[in-house]
């Protein structure tokens, strides 16, 4: 295991932020720390990096107990949400910083920094200052700077949080490819479930300061540990007292076995998908169908339809 966190507790003053958090991160993996705002993701990441000291519990990095080590000695790469670029240094000097601290020979530094800048596609901007870069470029510079010291683990706090949707998507794919190239154990924080599912090979759901579930994206999506995780990982709707994914519902004009009647209240066409909003058993729900399906059924407001979970659909019974 590259990172082993055991029973970590952390409070700020009297506010508990992490509660008995244990976490294993396999060497070479790309793990997403997913959870709602204020869930303690950043705090956990900072505990791993040594920027925050846990009240109790231990952190081991590559098998070495790092709980009492200062960040300076942990050899982790940390990328801050707002980049923390060294404003008075050029892109080149930013990336070279860790190597200069380690007193590496000048030409070795030059070679390594240029390699890294090529890796993050910033080789042409080496002499610029951070204020002359776009957000995405700054983010990549911060990543190159963290990678320069060949860290044992790379920790990214909402790496794409401050970027617009388009750049975000690009960088996501790019991060995935970069990881396949560099293979450094990576943990990144996000509150965007789509990002976690798309990029990570392991997802750890953290909420209210506790690890709620950990597993591969498929596992977490298909077998959510509780309604919270199910809601957090994707769209859900409620039919017959169960939580179901809206695309896992069969809709038909005629009564079916195990189905419940519902009245269509609105049909919303969102490009390829069509969202059918219904009233069922006195409350509202919605079903996601394809355009083709919607056309075939010819649904309109006021129609009565029959709904049931598709065979093999995952659903969670809600405790009333």
């Amino acid at each position, binding site marked *: 295991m590259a990172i082993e966190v055991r029973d970590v507790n952390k409070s700020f003053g009297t506010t508990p932020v992490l509660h008995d958090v244990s976490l294993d991160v396999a060497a070479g993996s790309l793990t997403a720390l997913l959870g709602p705002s204020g869930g303690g993701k950043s705090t956990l990441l900072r505990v791993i990096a040594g920027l925050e000291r846990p009240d109790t519990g231990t952190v081991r990095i590559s098998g070495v107990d790092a709980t009492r080590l200062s960040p300076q000695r*942990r*050899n982790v790469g*940390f990328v801050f949400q707002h980049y*923390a670029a*060294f404003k008075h240094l050029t892109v080149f000097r930013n990336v070279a910083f860790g190597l200069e*601290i380690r007193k590496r020979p000048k030409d070795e530094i030059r070679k390594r920094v240029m390699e890294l800048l090529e890796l993050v596609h910033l080789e042409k901007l080496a002499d610029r200052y951070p204020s002359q870069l776009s957000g995405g470029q700054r983010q990549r510079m911060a990543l190159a*700077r*963290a990678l*320069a010291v060949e860290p044992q683990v790379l920790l990214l706090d909402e790496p794409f949080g401050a970027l617009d949707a388009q750049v975000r998507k690009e960088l996501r794919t790019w991060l995935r490819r970069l990881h396949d190239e560099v293979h450094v154990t990576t943990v990144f924080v996000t509150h965007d479930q789509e990002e976690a599912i798309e990029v990570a090979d392991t997802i750890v759901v953290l909420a209210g300061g506790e690890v709620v579930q950990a597993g591969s994206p498929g596992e977490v999506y298909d077998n959510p540990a509780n309604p919270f995780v199910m809601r957090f990982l994707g769209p859900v709707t409620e039919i017959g007292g169960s939580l179901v994914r809206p695309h896992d519902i069969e809709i038909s004009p005629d009564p079916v076995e195990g189905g419940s009647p519902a009245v269509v209240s609105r049909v919303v066409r969102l490009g390829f998908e069509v969202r059918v909003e219904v009233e069922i058993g006195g409350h509202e729900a919605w079903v996601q169908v394809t355009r083709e399906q919607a056309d075939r059924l010819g649904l309109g407001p006021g129609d009565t339809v029959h709904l049931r979970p598709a065979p093999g659909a995952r659903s969670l019974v809600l405790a009333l």
Partner: protein
Amino acid sequence: MAKHVLRVVAVVYVLFLLVLPVALIVWRTFGDGLAPFAEALTSPSALHAFTVTLTVAGWAVLANTVFGVGAALLLVRHEFPGKRLLGAFIDLPMAVSPVVVGLALILVYGRFSPLGGLLESWGIQVIFSTPGMVLATVFVSLPLVVRAVVPVLEELGDEQEQAAHTLGASRLQSFVRITLPGIRWALGYGVVLCLARSLGEYGAVAVVSGRLVDQTQTLTLFVEERFQNFDQPAAFAAATALALIAVVTLLFTKLLRPKDRSDGN
């Protein structure tokens, strides 16, 4: 209309309070050409006063730079009991008259106080000598560096320093390589202000120095003493020199100010 009245008021105000006095001093100084000016400033007493002023101001600026940066770091980056009290104390010299400061220093370090007696028995004379004058000057110019650095340090935040730590930098390394460059303009501004204040200090230094001609006489004391002794050329020459130094330091602060801003974004 109101605009014009305001403008006239402002101009008259500045004219009578600033322009006229300074212009008169300059006119009196150079009224008989440059030679008397040079002569008055190169008299042994004047030169000695220059040296004393520079020595005292130099030490005071050094002390307040080190203390100022330290105190600013403490106030911005750390939580500790008594923090607000420290902040209030740092502003105290703004409110207390320098004469009071001088008297207080005599009470603490004077020959007849326990602390002063002890220091004297070790051969260190504080009052009526350079250490006391440095102390007095340090006190009156204490807030300038701290107050210049604190807001910039706050705006800088500590993420860059944390990033430096994760990249392997020690506290000292991250201070020298990250924090110091981040606050350099503000620090320069504070140091220049502190220098200007130290060079011009009169009240506190007058009390603790004992005004010993050719021994503890600073340039401001020299001006006053020459004026009292009807040596107006020397008094005006030294006053003009002080004013010129002030103008130069002011220009420096003007140079430092705009960069400060462009550096912040």
